[in-house]
């Protein structure tokens, strides 16, 4: 479904992503985790085509990003970490906008269904400017799901959601994956996402540290228990990488 090969993104003074490669099948939910500045948001932006990578290749459903960027974007949805809405449009009008941008036919029943599922029906005619952060997040998610994307990219989607909102979001993610779409979700809330992701990609300073299911990553770490939590795996992975780097630095005298 999704192939990412040798992705590189250089900003003026730093390399945000360095030779990143991974694949994802339909129905899989990938948890993208890493410390601050690891390159999670940049990775999602490069995959979605709103940033052009300096090198590498993104292929989604047979569509190569560099060759058909508009077609690629038709097949995916990106829900950003800080959801900005058009203050002068209502919740319903945001969904209508998505329907028109993505040329979705007979979108109204689907929109009603999403509003119901995300508990937004009562705010359907509210102006976006009057919504709380959690509500705005839900509107952004509804917009992302309306056109049934092949790939759903969620950047820190849990921030600002109340417990019910989080459960609703995970339900929506699960049902999206059940229809054969792939989902990538970045988050710092490791305890929250570990039961909802089928696999994990751990990034650090733009590089891939580990990619696989929780048990596969745990198995590749020498001292990690098989039943370790994602948080333990995360710290084990990032700390082993740090000590590895320190050891390499010691050896090279850097």
């Amino acid at each position, binding site marked *: 479904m999704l192939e990412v090969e040798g992705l590189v993104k250089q900003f003026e003074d730093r390399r945000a992503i360095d030779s990143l490669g991974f694949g994802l099948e339909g129905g899989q939910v990938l948890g993208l985790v890493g410390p601050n500045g690891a390159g999670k948001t940049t990775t999602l932006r490069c995959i979605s085509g709103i940033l*052009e990578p300096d090198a590498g290749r993104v292929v989604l459903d047979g569509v190569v990003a560099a060759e058909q960027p508009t077609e690629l974007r038709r097949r995916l949805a990106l829900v950003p970490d800080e959801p900005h809405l058009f*203050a*002068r449009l209502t919740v319903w*009008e945001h969904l209508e906008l*998505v329907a028109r941008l993505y040329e979705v036919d007979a979108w109204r029943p689907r929109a009603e269904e999403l509003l119901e599922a995300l508990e937004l029906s009562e705010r359907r005619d509210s*102006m976006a400017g009057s919504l709380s952060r959690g509500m705005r997040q839900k509107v952004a998610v509804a*917009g992302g799901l309306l056109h049934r994307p092949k790939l759903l990219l969620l950047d820190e989607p849990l921030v600002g959601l109340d417990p019910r909102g989080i459960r609703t979001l995970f339900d929506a993610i699960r049902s999206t994956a059940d229809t054969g779409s792939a989902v990538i979700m970045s988050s710092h809330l490791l305890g929250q996402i570990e039961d909802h992701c089928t696999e994990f990609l751990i990034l650090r300073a733009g590089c891939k540290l580990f990619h696989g299911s929780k048990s596969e990553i745990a198995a590749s770490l020498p001292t990690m228990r098989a039943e370790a939590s994602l948080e333990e795996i995360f710290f084990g992975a990032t700390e082993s990488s740090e000590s590895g780097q320190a050891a390499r630095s010691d050896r090279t005298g850097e």
Partner: protein
Amino acid sequence: MTRGLWWLLWRDTIGAGRGIAARTLRPMPILLALGFLLLAGLLAYATRGQPGISLAGARQIGAPVLAMVVLLGVFSPHGLFFRPAEIDWLFPAPVSRRSLALFNILVRARTAVLSGLVLPMFVSWRGNDPLFTFLGYTLVFLLLQISAQWFAVVRAWLATRAALPIRYVLGIALFAIPLGAVAIELRTHPGDLASFMIDSRVLSMLGAPVRPFLGVVVAESGMVACANAALALALLAAIVSHILWLDVPYRETAIAGTERFSRRLANMRGGGGSFGVSAASVRSRLPMFPRLGGAGPIAWRQLLELIRNPRGVGLVVGVVAITAGGSLAGPMLRGAEGEPFPPGFALVAVFISTWIPLLMGENIACDFRRDFDRMPILKSWPISPLAVATGQIAAAAGFATLIQLAAVWFIAAVSGALPVWLVLAAPVLLPAVSWVAISLDNLLFLWMPYRNVPEDPGDVGFVGRTFALTGLKFLSISLLLTGAFGVGYITQVATASRVMAVLVLAGLLFAACVVATLLVARAYRRFDVSRDLPA
């Protein structure tokens, strides 16, 4: 452009109209609108004997000035501005770069039309026919918006082809060459400044591309207006075509610019001015002031934050220097032997340098406006409202006075054309003017809390609010000074004593400051943090 983008443009415009209608009936906008109309009315009264802008004036003075303003767009960081919602919803959507660029141009066109409707209310800028004036100003605003976008696209295009030093050289040359040519021509011109503006070939060449735009504003017949509008539209079409033809990958630049702008907005909404505190500036120290009932520490905190905002302070000082310096530059450049410096130019420079620190208060706000997210903390301190109000106003007024005094004395020294009484009276007049102006800003804020920050770089409502606030401030200060000088004059006539007149004048100004402070203190005491904090 896709149907979705057309639909968004339409719905967003309808929503903007609804929003303006809903806001118009609230007290603050009504008060601001009154201020705006008062200023427009004063200008109409002051210029009632003048028929309008002449074609020659537009050609010889307006065109080169407009051309320079257009050129300033080279440095605009908002040339490729997209609202955060546009980035979130449109950038990942299946929409081509060209469609997005066209959408951006149309959003700017909408802003230009609204600006064209509002700004010609300042009748001193009027043309000969209201319709041509509106059309002309709309085209001028469209040119400013689209040219800024064009410069940004060309910059992005150059970035992929030329090294940074070459781009810097090109940017400097763009200004240095015309300004240098004007300076050389000015030095050799035999007549006075007014005749230079009319005779200058350099200025004529500089203004040529934008002359049709002003030609519409001052057109005396439909035919002339149509001919000029056709030329202006052709130029705009050429610019738009070039933007679309270049089709540079601007998304990354746009995201970075919008994130920068959003950070600045958040800073201003939080009361921090448009610049944050830089890491290097925390080295700046200020000794603690005496307590003075609590006013001392309040003023100390505000001033400390101010001196740790060197970019904000630098911006105000820079704008004062550039605008006041601009008024002095003409006579200075001429440097004719024995020719006295025209007093009018020196007075204009004084007026500008007195007003700018007061107008740019939002940018460096170090008073209640800065603290609106911290009002609950302020209220919890064991300090009387009068002391809080005094401390808050003192810092902002003190800073403004410092810049004003430095500017006035510099202008006096350079030009030698300022009346002696003005130079001597400045240390008495300017603190009072600043104190009352800052008090008025704070009073309006505490009575009807608002966040006077733009939503985006083309926010017409923000421009309107700023104009209206300026109008109110200008009117209040004018009334105060006229009244105080009037009473002072009557005192001099009645007592035949200049000393008595000066004492009365100073007493009146002091009383105005006391009354203003008491009003601010009362408004602060009545400020209800559970109800009055703006969203």
